[in-house]
């Protein structure tokens, strides 16, 4: 910033952009430099420079005790360790994050449904909004504790009172609800990617969303079985959803649905009522009026909700850590923190490598969000 501003003072007026700044006194210019400079320096120093250091540390080996100077460069060894069978914690954590993304995605859809229903001028709409939104103002850690105290206790919790049979220790039980062999999982991931690609082209080609998606789905199922045929036997222990992570999912839903609901409610206010009227005069039924009138208006909100959902799922940490970081509930956030502090704190290189995996996962969505928001300025 400083160099460009200095140029302006030194060189004669060249363009309209500069001539406006030319009217500022030097005192004003210093004021503006400070106004941007101080917050920007703090932000860069405590957010971006540490991110770069984490990237560097992920290629180093350092025990966090001796001076940093004693650390040595080990190339991709940390990454090699965490991605191979040598370190068995990355994939379970990644899988839990993946489950969380899918689950919060479903919750976002429910939140959208709630918003749509509340937008219909139901009696007491305001009351319902307040009720659904209340968990959002609580910290996720507190949400975890409330659910622990009320719902999850083995002998007296509400869920065990409602569900018949022997009491389940929801938070301590790492038994699997379902298990996936790693070859099935890999085939699923390949099939999912294939589905997205095929759906994209099929919808473009046919011009119909449903028909295109149907064709893509059939293709994806065929691909799934083909890939599974050629996939080698599972390398590592199977991945799955453990019961205690399932409990955390339920508690997260309680908070996430209200959050998304409020965002969509604000968006629905932007739907021009006369458009809806026109649609209903033309004889559009409810689903089709939703699809063609309401949904397009919600598109910008969809983008925001998608980013919020994915980033929240990837950043998940508080509730899991607050509930004691039980076996079976590891996510990337707890994995990074656990490798850098506490008992496992001596493995800065490995922890930073975990951190970089998390960062790379978030990075795509961060870029998408930023481009989405600043497109018009750049154009």
């Amino acid at each position, binding site marked *: 910033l400083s160099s460009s*501003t200095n140029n302006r003072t030194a060189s004669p007026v060249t363009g309209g952009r500069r001539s406006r*700044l030319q009217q*500022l006194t030097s005192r004003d210019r210093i*004021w*503006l430099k400070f106004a*941007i400079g*101080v917050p*920007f320096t*703090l*932000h860069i120093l*405590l*957010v971006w420079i*540490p*991110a770069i*250091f984490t990237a560097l540390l992920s290629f180093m080996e350092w025990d966090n005790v001796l001076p940093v100077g004693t650390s040595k460069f080990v190339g991709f060894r940390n990454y090699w360790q965490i991605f191979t069978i040598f370190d068995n914690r990355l994939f379970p954590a990644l899988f839990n994050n993946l489950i969380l993304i899918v689950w919060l995605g479903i919750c976002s859809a429910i939140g959208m449904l709630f918003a749509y*229903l509340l937008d219909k*001028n*139901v*009696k007491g*709409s305001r009351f319902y909004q307040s*009720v659904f939104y*209340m*968990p959002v*103002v609580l*910290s*996720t*850690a*507190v949400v975890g*504790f*409330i659910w*622990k*105290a*009320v719902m999850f*206790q083995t002998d*007296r919790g509400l869920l065990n*009172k409602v569900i018949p049979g022997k009491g389940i220790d929801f938070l301590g039980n790492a038994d699997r609800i379902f298990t996936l062999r790693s070859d099935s999982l890999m085939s699923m991931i390949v099939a999912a990617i294939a589905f997205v690609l095929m759906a994209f082209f099929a919808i473009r080609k046919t011009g119909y969303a449903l028909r295109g998606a149907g064709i893509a789905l059939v293709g994806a199922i065929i691909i799934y079985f083909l890939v599974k045929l050629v996939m080698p036997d599972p390398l590592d222990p199977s991945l799955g959803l453990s019961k205690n992570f399932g409990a955390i999912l339920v508690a997260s839903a309680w908070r996430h649905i209200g959050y998304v609901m409020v965002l969509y409610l604000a968006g629905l206010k932007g739907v021009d*009522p*006369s458009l809806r*009227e026109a649609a*209903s*005069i033309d004889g559009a039924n409810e689903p089709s009026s939703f699809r063609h009138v309401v949904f397009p208006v919600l*598109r*910008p*909100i969809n*983008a*925001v*909700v998608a980013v*919020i959902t994915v*980033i929240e799922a990837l*950043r998940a*940490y508080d509730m899991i*850590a607050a509930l*004691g970081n039980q076996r079976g509930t590891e996510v*990337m956030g707890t994995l990074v*923190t656990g490798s850098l502090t506490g008992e496992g704190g001596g493995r800065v290189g490995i922890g930073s490598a975990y*951190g970089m995996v*998390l960062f790379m996962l978030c990075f795509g*969505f961060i870029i998408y969000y930023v481009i989405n*928001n*600043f497109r018009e300025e750049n154009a």
Partner: protein
Amino acid sequence: MSADTAPVDHLVTPATSIGSEVDAHEMGTAPKTRPQKSRVPRFILQGFLSLMAVSWLIPMFGAALSSFRNEQDIRDNGVISFPKQLTLSAYKEALEKGLGRKFLNTAFILFPSLFLILLFSCLVGFACTRFSGRFNVTFLVIFTAGNLMPQQVIFQPVLQLFKRFNLIDELSDTNTGVLLGTKISVILIHVAFQTGFCTFVISNYMKTLPKELTEAALVDGASVNTQFWKIVLPLCRPALAALGTLEFTWLYNDFFWGSVLLNQGREKPITSAIAELSGAFSTQDSLVAAASMLIAIPTILVYLALQKHFIGGLTLGANKG
């Protein structure tokens, strides 16, 4: 925002309902003032929503109930049951274990952070939107992207950085002579992180203010400083109220930084302190419930009192797509 629901209602005039295919045959039964699609779906809708609302309230209600009961009662009869007697002993015990001091810690961290975050984001937003500079968009992009960074990615280098800063901090008990472990370190990281989001929101808001306002002031010879404090800042009051409310709860609810930067238990803010409570109280539902209620009450009160601002803040950031 829920207040806005009403006008939309009136815009859907009865005339449209007549035209609509679905409603035409039901004109006789529907009340004239409120156009309804049909009676049965309305009824189902209400039923569904009330059922959902009740199930939404159960955890909160259960926690509130448990916090006033004694442990034996809960064990004998389950969490949701008619209490034999109500007592404040769980609250008393939670406060005796030092929760009161943790509230003070939170206040010492929260209010300076909140002030600085709002001031900084207004300054950056003002400078980047009211004055044309070559890197304005770059600044805003960096701030916005930085806010989405996962905190775990940056905390180890931040820890190392804070360890290397010497500082005598009179506010903190545990004076180790370095920045790490002081409340100031938490304030700094909050300001650095949250300024990103607030700058993004505030700059979007400032863009909607007419350019002529500051240009007129410029012609009148007002300094940039005057323009900021006397013209732009007062106009940003609604956005600031919304953002302030939202940031209040976010900072209050921060768990991560409070627990990794302040590893001395006494210094921890209230939300981070709850992890310790879980260790100590884990078998005692009434205590966990009482502690949770104590922690939840401030944000719930703020939410109920400032609901409009709160939701406004959330949607200010999201509405710009």
